[in-house]
């Protein structure tokens, strides 16, 4: 019947429209970053120029300035360093904790798991003032180590929850078989469960790196020396000299630190959701 077919096509068009609209909304700023990166400053700063096209030929100058005349490269390195260290600490703390909550904790395990998860919601803005003082007293002011020390406070709760979800999804029979074969439970955990959860662990690693890259409040509070900035803080504070914004380089800096990690993250989102919901939806 024609009415039914028309209805179905209308539905599809509506669906396409909705998805398209949202996609433009979310992605437009990044597209804009990309275009601006290659625009000459003289092109950018003319109000009359159509911003959607290259009125003057594109240039790599902004990127050059970013890497050669600012500390951007160093900030990227700082961020990566902090990220890797925090990943290690997070795994060391969260892997056993997640396993224990998934297998060993029984009734109070459910509660403890939710409790740990909730600490993720404790905002940095509540704690950053006393923390700044403590960091100062410990002599870590302006050091990247202050971040390495403090960042696991939000990565560990969430990653413990995620890992708990991943471990719950593995049938206990496998560990029991390993234990019958002669391993202790700890041994079974290390030799059987961990290798099987590699995909989940990788997801946790990517997620931790994203959290580290995004963090702003602590980094802004603890570190004031430009050499030691992370990308998240360096770009907003340093690349703005008074009222003059070097938009081209600024946008280049934003794009480079945003999009690659998003692409990487997209590969792992499904697993992330799986781990998140196993714990939440009993």
């Amino acid at each position: 019947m024609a009415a039914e077919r028309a209805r179905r096509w209308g539905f599809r068009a509506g669906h396409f429209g909705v998805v398209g609209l949202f996609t433009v909304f979310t992605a437009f700023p990044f597209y804009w970053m990309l275009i601006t990166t290659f625009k000459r400053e003289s092109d950018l700063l003319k109000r009359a120029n159509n911003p959607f096209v290259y009125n003057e030929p594109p240039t790599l100058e902004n990127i050059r300035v970013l890497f050669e005349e600012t500390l951007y490269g160093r900030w990227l390195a700082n961020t990566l360093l902090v990220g890797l260290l925090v990943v290690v600490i997070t795994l060391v703390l969260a892997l056993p904790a997640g396993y224990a909550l998934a297998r060993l904790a029984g009734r109070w395990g459910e509660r403890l798991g939710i409790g740990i998860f909730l600490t993720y919601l404790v905002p940095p803005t509540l704690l950053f003032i006393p923390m700044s003082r403590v960091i100062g007293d410990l002599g870590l002011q302006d050091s990247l180590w202050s971040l390495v020390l403090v960042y696991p406070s939000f990565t560990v709760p969430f990653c413990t929850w995620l890992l708990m979800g991943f471990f719950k999804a593995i049938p206990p029979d496998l560990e029991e078989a390993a234990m019958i074969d002669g391993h202790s439970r700890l041994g079974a955990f290390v030799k059987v469960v961990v290798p099987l959860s590699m995909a989940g662990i990788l997801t946790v690693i990517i997620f931790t790196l994203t959290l580290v890259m995004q963090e702003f409040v602590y980094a802004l509070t603890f570190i004031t020396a430009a050499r030691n900035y992370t990308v998240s803080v360096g770009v907003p504070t340093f690349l703005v000299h008074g009222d003059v914004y070097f938009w081209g380089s600024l946008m280049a800096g934003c794009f480079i630190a945003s999009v690659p990690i998003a692409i990487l993250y997209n590969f792992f989102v499904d697993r992330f959701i799986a781990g998140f919901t196993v714990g939440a939806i009993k």
Partner: protein
Amino acid sequence: MSGRRRLSFLLDRDEWLGPFMIGPAVLYIVLVLGVPFLLALYYSVSDITVGSRTLGFVGLKNFASVVETTKFQTSLKNTFVFAIVSQILVMVLGTVLALALARDFRGKWFVRLLILLPWVAPISLGTIGWLWILDSTYSVINWTLEALGLIGPDGWYMWLGVPYLAMGSVILIQVWRILPLATVILLAGLTSIPHDIHDAAQVDGAGFFRHLFQITMPLIHPIMLVAGLFGLVFAFTDMIVIFVLTRGGPYDTTQVLASLAFFTGIQGGDLAEGAAIAVFLFPLLVAVAIAFLRVARRTEVM
């Protein structure tokens, strides 16, 4: 029995292994979160500043003096407006988007990447992108509006410089930032509904709206609450978007509690007063946590 063998047999017992494995994580969290929290409470009733070596107890003086200022009252009001409006928008838009993404279509992986960008990208960097888009002199939005003939060359909006517009812009960007997270969580909830139920509703004769409102939405209620509470906590306690875009201006119209605490405590150096402001965030958190636990208990719909 040698000490080492004793240890390994101890670890064989689950009652010991459990606490042993959870212990370090819990210890760390308690130390790194608990201690500063107690300190925050303590500072708020002291006279500590960035430079001071000693702590003197001053009772509730900090709270009293802070609460009286218009700056604080405006910030409190703004915090509520900012958080509630942005979260309502996020939930509504997130639900729509999640429903749209629930069915498979070509290019879904790529679309998902684009939708996730605001949340995965470092918050400050994405916000700077908006700073450029909303810049009063060069805003592409203004340029486009003029090109479309909707405004004149003198009618360019100062998106971040005019009181209500600034709040609107800040809310918009908060929504932009949290939308992917909410969508992903809601999508997870939608996909967990067994396909049979949708089939049964179709056979039973439910039209589009009845199906949506009487079947689908009630079944994702619990997870909607999870997403909503998450976002609400972030919105109440966040300051990044405001810090980067407006620094709390113009004239404190976008100042929220979190940013006020930063400016008072860190930039201003008055740690005690900053802590007092920040402490106001705590009751909000407790309320949210309680609501969340209630929901978690009711999550067993199936």
